[in-house]
């Protein structure tokens, strides 16, 4: 590859500001972001303007003495309570939005597990029954990378991909996160979503609805070692039909149709 000296090829749409939104939770995140942007923007311009204005107006001038003032209690009260009220408001609204995301995933949510490792993503799909087979971090070893319990009937139709994630648009996706070694992070800026994946813990509260089709990058966003700089996978949001095709192509061929499809359950 030729050195890209001030000449980067443009592949994605935006350079300024946030990338185009692609998830339901991002609507509220962007809304809150903009509220804070306006709020801080006003404070920014007001305080910087005051600073410049004071510097010009009260520069040293012949015959003008500085005023002898030690402060003003009324002013102190005003500029203590005003920010306090604004911050309380922001806190209440932030908490409201935060709690809105963190409700149990709807029962029709597509279940996917992502297990980070140095330096890639193991992605496990729940298959037709939408139930992930049991897995435990304690059972992880070289052969059984994800610590799966193959005897679990729910595991029969599960399938795995590496660095390649495909999800359908407009359907809730519930992502269970684990890690094999160090902390990795699931981060997709278009979804406005970040979550650390901590070894020894199973993170079960992340779910969202992708709202537009597109090709995204699943980039690790938590320093995870010397190969961190290039730990990335593909993340494609496709139509429901395309997703069906994708699943059908990957799904393990049924050996014996013993267990009837178990009813969809949510793991909470």
């Amino acid at each position, binding site marked *: *590859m*030729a*050195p*890209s*000296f*001030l000449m*980067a*090829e443009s*592949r*994605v749409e935006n*350079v*300024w500001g*946030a*990338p185009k939104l692609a998830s339901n*939770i991002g609507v509220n*995140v962007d809304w*809150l972001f903009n509220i804070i942007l306006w709020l801080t923007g006003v404070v*920014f311009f007001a*305080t*910087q303007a005051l*600073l410049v204005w*004071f*510097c010009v107006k*009260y520069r*040293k001038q012949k015959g003008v*003495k*500085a005023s*002898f003032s*030690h*402060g003003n209690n009324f*002013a*102190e009260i005003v*500029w*203590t309570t005003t920010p*306090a009220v604004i*911050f*309380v408001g922001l806190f209440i609204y*932030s*908490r409201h939005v*935060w709690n809105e*995301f963190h409700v149990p995933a709807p029962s029709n949510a597509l279940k996917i597990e992502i297990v980070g490792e140095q330096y890639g993503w193991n992605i496990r799909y729940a298959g037709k029954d939408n139930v992930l087979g049991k897995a435990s971090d304690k059972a992880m070893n070289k052969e059984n990378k994800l610590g799966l319990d193959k005897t679990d009937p729910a595991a029969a139709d599960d399938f795995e991909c590496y660095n390649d994630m495909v999800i359908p648009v407009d359907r809730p996706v519930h992502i269970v996160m684990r890690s094999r070694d*160090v902390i990795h992070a699931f981060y997709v*800026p*278009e979804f406005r979503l*970040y*979550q*650390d994946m*901590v070894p*020894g*813990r199973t993170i079960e509260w992340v779910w969202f609805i992708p709202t537009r089709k597109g090709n995204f*990058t699943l*980039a*690790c*966003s*938590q*320093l995870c070692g*010397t190969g*961190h*700089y290039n730990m*990335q996978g593909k993340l494609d949001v496709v139509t429901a039909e395309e997703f069906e095709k994708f699943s059908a192509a990957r799904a393990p061929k049924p050996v014996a149709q013993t267990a009837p499809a178990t009813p969809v359950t949510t793991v909470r």
Partner: protein
Amino acid sequence: MSTAPAETSSAHHHHDETHHHEPELNFFWKYIFSTDHKMIGLQYFWTSLAFLFLGGGLALLVRWKIAFPEVPFPILSWVIGAPYVVDGIIQPGFYNMFFTMHATIMVFFVIMPALIGGFGNFLIPLQIGARDMAFPILNGVSYWLYLLSGIMICASFIVPGGAANSGWTSYAPLSAVEQYNLTANGQALWCLSIFVNGLASIAGAVNYITTVINMRAPGMKMLRMPLTVWSLFITAILLLLAVPILSAAGVMLCLDLKMGTSFFIPSKGGDALLWQHLFWFFGHPEVYIMILPAMGIVSEIMPVFARKPIFGYKAMVYAMAAIAVIGFVVWGHHMFVSGMSLTLSVIFTASTMLIAVPSAIKVFNWLGTLWRGSITFTTPMLFSIGFVSMFIIGGLSGIFMASTPVDLFIHHTYFIVAHIHYVLFGGSIMSLFAGLYFWFPKMFGKKLDEGLGKIHFVLTFLFMNLTFFPMHNLGMAGMMRRIADPTLYEHLRNLQPINQFVTICAFILGFSQLIFFYNAYRTLRRGKKCEKNPWHANTLEWSLEYPIGHGNFPKIPTVYRGAYEYSVPGFAQDYIPQDQKLSQEEESRLQKAMASSH
């Protein structure tokens, strides 16, 4: 060595002899193993400024790699060489080492020792009217521990495997398992170095607290102390409570790494988040440890050049105290998305919003200090005003992260990098220069050149903004921190021109700092001796003629008032030093003016 300068305040009144006429110390005892707080302060400055070169150089290497990942950096193969650099190209694994060491050095070996070790040692005894620190030998030991920790961190570059590469935050289990980080030796040295560095901080903190409580000159009530002393006093309390946690965590990490324990290794029964809780329990007070002294310095300088009392002295003190207290219960805001309990995230949002209030109070009081002043734009004043301006940006961008849902979006992106650099470069480093320009006459008896100083300020202010402001946008566009080569990512490739612009500005910013060193060199070589109080300031140190002897004050001064009585109506001179005894008539005029100044 002279007699121990420690005295109780009751003894001050009997101390009528003129100056300590001590035997001339030889070079070794005067400059190397000194117990004189002023010399120790200067030792801290010289050492930390040397580290500034190393830390700054590493920053430029990091920036080069991000902007021009494929372009060889001409002299690197020769200076650093394999395996870090091959054919002038920084290898991605070692890139991690460079940013880890950049942050470690800047935090523990530049900002803390310069602001706290340097200004703390130099100023506290002079400004409260003491002959030295309470424990002069411990003070020397503190510097030597700091230097030792510095040598250890430098040595870690040459051990097998190289220096630590898991970030200055050293998140476990990456940092705790050799198989994961591949630099067990460097990481272990990092832990030990931070431990020794912590000992130095603790020793210094004990000294500052004892000195401020016990050794103030007669009349120097707590609420008459200059705000620099207040800020350093509160910082010392923070150090004393926060640093031991890091030291303990560092030892635990080292044991995990080398001795087979598993405090932080989940596969062996430990907990990865335990490290983060311990680290940030130290790490967030640490942020205030790095900014409070800066606030103190600026609060000291602004009244002098606005020729006006500081606006809301008590509010300033209370705000600092509030920051110190609340600072201990906000650490979780670094961990909103770490896998920690979601309920905890909500609680930490509340405390984080709360701590923004005292910071806002301080900004408004600085503005109030300028209001109706008579401002002279000397270099220290320019750096102080620059500090306020940059601190506003750094403070406001922090609000985005405090809001948990927004943190989901910008966590671990360049938005955060922009934020911390506005606070630590725009805040701490700008105030470091403000303080150095301001107190240089007290340290060396000469004033730094104002022309060069102003060029230094303009270039620093301009290019720091051009370097760090675009990073907000990089973060919003989704660029993660700590990646060596953004062009590997399709969604970041079109941001590369911004990255290159930032890097070019960072280089200019870095090289602009050389102006300061040239200025210092030229002033020390050829500068004229200046008067003892060139800025017409009120605090006690300006009453002393350069060079200030071991023991500081020929006679311990008596303090009659606070440090900020400038432009008092009815007085010809527009400043009244803290130790100046006024006639009864003058004193009543001052009291009358003060009564109507609130």
